[in-house]
């Protein structure tokens, strides 16, 4: 019973936060100079007053701002994210169309960086001061400092242009007509470069964080006690040290998970990945308000969901922590 009221409380809070985000985004976007009508007219290279007027009426931009805001908020409350006149499609369809590609990309990057990062961190911590520790720490530092787009371009240059091992961009081989397993393999091949470049930074963060955290925990009294009891070092590492060192990792992973939706603008652009980050970026350049707000809304909702999940995981990793 208590847990239900607790969850209900969080949901109410989440709804308020979402509403605030919605209103704030709406106002921010509309305060940017330019509107979709001038952008569309500009792209056509010619226009007259009548044409701009027609577009503005079509987009509902002739209404006062508070009317537009009220209409938008009440539409969203009914889960209607509006219509993109530019793309001639309902925004929700556009987003649902692009979301799987982004989830696949960011999800893979998330898994790759979490697994690789924690493994590397544990390895470095257990060999602290030795050459393998130095190597891991140095590589992590380099990845940490490398700009994403540069890593991506270098990856393309090496693995696609020079070696020809991996496709340089795209979601799958266009027009190849693969189905089933062959298609999955094809998509997987296309996924390697973008997912790795996107995951590099977090891999580095996880490994450094894990290493530091493990070293800190291993100095604590209860670890000494465990050692004194004569437990095997492996068991101590796994049960006592790693488990207690995981908390900050969970915090970070929660942060990264929050970026699963909409956090890959650069990667998606460089690799022509048909995801939601690019959709958002293009919508920004074109002042396609509804699409932009829609992506923001969906991303914000996902961040809230991931925050809740993170809180639950805290409780599992360390039972002393209770979700308030």
């Amino acid at each position, binding site marked *: 019973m208590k847990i239900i009221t607790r969850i209900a409380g969080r949901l109410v809070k989440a709804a308020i936060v979402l509403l605030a985000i919605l209103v704030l985004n709406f106002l921010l976007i509309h305060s*940017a100079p330019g509107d979709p009508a001038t952008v569309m007219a500009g792209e056509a290279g010619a226009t007259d007053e009548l044409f701009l007027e027609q577009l503005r009426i079509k987009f509902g931009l002739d209404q006062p701002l508070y009317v537009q805001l009220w209409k938008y908020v009440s539409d969203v409350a009914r889960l209607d994210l509006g219509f993109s006149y530019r793309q001639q499609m309902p925004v929700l369809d556009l987003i649902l169309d692009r979301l799987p590609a982004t989830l696949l990309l960011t999800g893979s990057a998330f898994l790759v960086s979490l697994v690789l990062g924690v493994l590397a961190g544990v390895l470095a911590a257990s060999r602290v001061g030795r050459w393998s520790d130095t190597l891991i720490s140095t590589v992590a530092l380099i990845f940490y400092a490398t700009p994403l787009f540069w890593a991506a371009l270098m990856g393309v240059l090496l693995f696609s242009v020079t070696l020809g091992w991996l496709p340089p961009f795209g979601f799958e081989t*266009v027009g190849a007509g693969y189905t089933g397993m062959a298609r999955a393999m094809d998509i997987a091949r296309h996924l390697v470069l973008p997912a790795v470049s996107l995951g590099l930074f977090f891999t580095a963060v996880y490994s450094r964080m894990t290493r530091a955290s493990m070293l800190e925990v291993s100095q604590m009294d209860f670890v000494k006690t465990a050692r004194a009891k004569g437990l095997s070092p492996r068991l101590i590492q796994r049960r006592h040290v790693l488990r207690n060192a995981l908390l900050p990792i969970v915090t970070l992973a929660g942060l990264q998970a929050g970026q699963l939706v909409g956090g890959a603008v650069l990667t998606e652009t460089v690799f022509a990945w048909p995801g939601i980050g690019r959709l958002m970026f293009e919508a920004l350049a074109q002042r396609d308000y509804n699409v932009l707000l829609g992506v923001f809304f969906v991303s914000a909702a996902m961040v809230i969901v991931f925050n809740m999940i993170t809180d639950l995981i805290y409780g599992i990793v360390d039972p002393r922590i209770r979700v308030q």
Partner: protein
Amino acid sequence: MRRLLTAAIAGLLPATSAMADPVMGGRANIVVQPEPPSLMLGLVQNAPTQMVAGNIYEGLLRYDTKLNPMPSLAKSWEISEDGLTYTFHLEDGVKWHDGTPFSSADVVFTADVFLRESHPRFRAVLAHVESITAPDDNTVVFKLKSAFGPFLNAFEVGSMPIVPKHVYEGTDFATNPANNTPIGTGPFKLDEWSKGSYIKLVKNADYWDEGKPYLDEIYWHVIPDAASRAVAFETGQVDILPGGSIENFDVPRITALENTCSTESGWEFFGPQSWVWMNNRQGPTASKEFRQAIMYAIDRDFVRDALWNGMGKVSTGPFAGSTRFYDASIAPFSYDPEKAKELVKASGYDGEVLEFVPMPYGETWMRLAEVIKQNLSDIGVNVDIVSTDVAGWNKRLSDWDFDLSTTYLFQYGDPALGVARTYISSNIAKGSPWNNVAGYSNPDIDALFEKGAGTINTDERAAAYTEVQRKLAEDVPVGWLLDMGFPTITRCNVKDLITTGIGVNDGFKNAYIEK
């Protein structure tokens, strides 16, 4: 006789002749950037839409690289003596992509109803038209209010795409669901559009021009990053890079690749010309001497060679070289900083800092802004570069909130269609970045442009436009930079891709891929 001649040539050059036979089948992979918002060419006329939809829709006429009209949906046409009546005879046996027969009623509906509502550029042309009628199924007659010189130049597919009456009549054009499944008469049909990835067109097997098109399918690849587009060509994903697809600094590297051909042809109709907008209303740029100084101060040869890798030509005045009635005898401005300094002095410039809002269309344009800033600081003019994104730039220009800016505009083959709009007073209106943004106003120029447009007598037109060019070159309402060159880069086995003055936008009707 003609057949005999062909036979003789074939006998002399057997290899060339064999190669000139178009090959059936195959696929073209080409880049499109940015992704078009829609392929309904009657509603949306931005560059990527025109490029893809030029395969789906057709106009009444096409234009060769010298801008002479050629048949398309109209197989022949006549103009009355007084230049007021244009009669078009349409091709027989044309069908829409859904199988419905095409007729003159479609043309009347398109021009008189559809485009009048939705196409600003064609609407301006229609202002000269008194009536559009269809005496029979295969004939359309345009009657003009008064003679309009460039009328025959306004029928290309981007200006006047013919749309199906049976799909659009009586509907709200903008929200018609058919906009997502465009129905045209063109050589290719839309097959699949995977948003964010590619657009696939397939051959129209029922195409009226027997035997064409040759290709089976066209894939337009959406690749947002310029470097990735270059890589796409290098690694073989695409075979065609339309003009402007890759950054200029990549052009020499890509064109040097094996089995790679490039041409600057196919832009004659558009005649893209770049210039520096100068706000003629206020500040130092309101002075003629000051504007002339800017023309002398900018090292345009350097701009062409260093920024555009030698592509294009330095503009001599308001008409791009490929535009009709271009007068080559007008003395071009040279790079002369000393003269520029004198002119700046003469203008009474007091050191005020000018706001320069460059066009945010990619790296090269930002570099151009830096060159111009440097050139102007060399003659003692202070400039602040204000960075914006595209929407913000549109807004600043539309609101006349700038001292200097850059841009490039199409000239649409005829001064009355693409040039006049930049300089005539009636085209000064807040709210658009593409009209007479500079705010230049000169009754003589207005009258001359009107005279040039109001007759079909070529000599009279030429005389008026020569005068226009002289006067404008003296007044410098904007600072002309380059008649731009946009190379289309292809594998050498892609043949006959560009056969007209609108290049890739004219569709792949004649293109084939040599085995």
